[in-house]
């Protein structure tokens, strides 16, 4: 997880050495930074940037602050009054996690749904993309383009037939249907991304291994997998956030006992739309895991984003 080959620019950390003034030769980024100096010294430019930054953060801060205020205060005054009369409590979290909303058990469901829904499509897509990238067989390109093209199919078009198939098989509402559905929907993008990364590995490496008599197991685990770790990490984060934040699949396939946090929180918003002490705490409970994952593994995420969309 540490080595990051510089295949794609990661915009969020590209400027790490930005204001280090070195004597002698300057890096390209530094020269550009000096050339560009004065852009933000325009007060209008700064003002616009600051306004955008405020608009993008203040609503979330409002939610976070409110979730720690006593329910009675939330009903009677705005969260901005907290600076004059600070009153904080953890009651809302206690209530929403272990009270009638019972988000704690849906939190477990979200974890139980998400991890296999990340691991299963990756394990299937790794083998498929290995074959698409490095094994010659008839109709390979056609099949690959077909799988890739399936990315444009909106999942809505598959829901009802899938649901009735699950009902017929009597596995409707179990975790299995949720895992299976998420895996199916993830496969086209997973195969496409992993195939692209596998293709970037020099053919000579594979050829050399084959010359040495290595079988698929050896090539896969000893040559490809170590080089693919960053790519797998990128897709895994992508898929993790997608599944954790998904509403439609959970709503359609999970039942009362297996549904994820998003469905439970959306339900709360529908039935207790004015219980802001529950809603704010519940929303934050549903956000905390993706926020941590995202902040910790941001650069892998950005890389996946760039690889997935710019090439696609």
């Amino acid at each position, binding site marked *: 997880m540490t080595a990051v080959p510089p295949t*794609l620019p990661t*915009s969020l*950390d590209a400027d*790490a050495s930005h204001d280090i003034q070195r004597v002698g030769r300057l890096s390209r980024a530094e*020269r550009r930074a000096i050339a560009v100096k004065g*852009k*933000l010294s*325009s007060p209008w*430019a700064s003002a*616009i*940037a600051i306004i*955008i930054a405020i608009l*993008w953060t203040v*609503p*979330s801060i*409002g939610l976070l602050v409110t979730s720690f205020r006593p329910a009675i205060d939330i009903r009677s*005054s*705005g969260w901005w009054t907290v600076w004059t009369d600070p009153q904080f409590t953890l009651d809302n979290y206690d209530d929403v996690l272990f009270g009638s909303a019972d988000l704690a058990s849906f939190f*477990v469901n979200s974890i*139980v749904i998400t*991890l296999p829904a990340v*691991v299963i499509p990756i*394990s*299937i897509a790794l*083998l498929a993309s290995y074959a*698409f990238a490095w094994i010659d*067989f008839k109709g390979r390109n056609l*099949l690959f383009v077909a*799988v890739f093209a*399936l990315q*444009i199919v*909106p999942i*809505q*078009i*598959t829901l*009802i*037939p899938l649901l009735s*198939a699950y009902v017929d098989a009597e596995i409707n509402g179990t975790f*299995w249907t949720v895992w299976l559905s998420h895996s*199916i*929907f993830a*496969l*086209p993008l997973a195969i496409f991304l992993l195939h692209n990364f596998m293709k970037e590995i020099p053919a000579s490496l594979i050829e050399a291994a*084959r010359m040495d008599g290595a*079988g*698929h*197991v050896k090539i896969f685990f000893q040559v490809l997998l170590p080089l693919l770790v960053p790519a797998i990490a990128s897709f895994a984060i992508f898929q993790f956030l997608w599944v*954790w*934040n998904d*509403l439609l699949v959970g*709503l359609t396939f999970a039942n009362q*006992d297996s549904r994820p946090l*998003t469905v439970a*929180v959306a339900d709360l918003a*529908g039935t207790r739309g004015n219980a802001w002490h529950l809603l*704010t705490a519940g929303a934050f409970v549903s956000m905390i895991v993706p926020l941590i994952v995202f902040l910790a593994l941001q650069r892998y995420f*950005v890389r996946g984003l*760039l690889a997935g*969309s*710019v090439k696609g």
Partner: protein
Amino acid sequence: MDFFTSPETTAEKLGLMVFAMLLFVVVMGGLLFAVDKPKRVPRWVVALCFVGPAVLLVVGGLVYPGILTIISSFKNKTGAEWVGLDNYVTAFTTDQFQIVLRNTALWVVLVPIVSTFIGLVYAVLVDRTRFEKLAKALVFLPMAISMVGASIIWKFVYEYRPDQPGIQQTGLLNQLLVWLGLEPQQFLINQPTNTLFLIAVMVWIQTGFAMTILSAAIKAIPDDIVEAARLDGLHGVGMFRYITVPSIRPALVVVVTTIAMGTLKVFDIVRTMTGGQFGTSVVANEFYTQSFRLANEGLGAALAVILFILVIPIVVYNVRQLRLSEEVR
């Protein structure tokens, strides 16, 4: 079998989770080991073992259900009788659905344009400044959270309290109106502007995506072009208009089309904030309502097919623009 279908305690659930992950990893690993030696196993068997599971899943889980849905879009509520194009006629002509289509058009046009514009401006403004990393993370964070969460954040911003003495507004936007001496508004109920307030939430989410992709594209503009333009006397807005934007055109096309496709399928925001009431529904939300709430299978299927058809021109445009930009190079 109870454990496999309906685990009850947390420990059982976690156990089943680990079991499911191991099951798939072991099966896929087993396939790999089974065809290990390239000499002894015919190549088509190898390909079948590796590609087979994936192809089986996408054909069985995407292609076949898709075809079934297209077929049932020509049938009635229960799927028992053929009704020809009736469902499509309903979806395009009745008043209720005209509003749905109008809203969907608004979403698909406004979200990509506004979020790409804001993302681009922001990317240019913070490019190579001292606070770039932090500034980008702030705008990027909404990408990480669920649309349900984002909807709740904004529903709280839009919260309305009746304008009576002794009652304070608890929604930030209405408080701002009050501070400015205006009447508080029911943002999510007043038609037709309520759709715009829902669209704002999607813009808030997607801007980070636009900013990230475009920022990477801006950093990739060759130095000599920027240098030459500067020697020619281009600065600020001129540089933005004549150098930055044309240089990153391919990335702009990708961003706009990607966001448009994502926007078309989004129903989380509408469902969480208004439930599609007050004239705010979109095709994706109406699909869910018709299919699962009102049990109108035929109409629901037709709406899903319409979603699919609406995606196609966006994809075609995307592919054509990419081809064009490759030819130019």
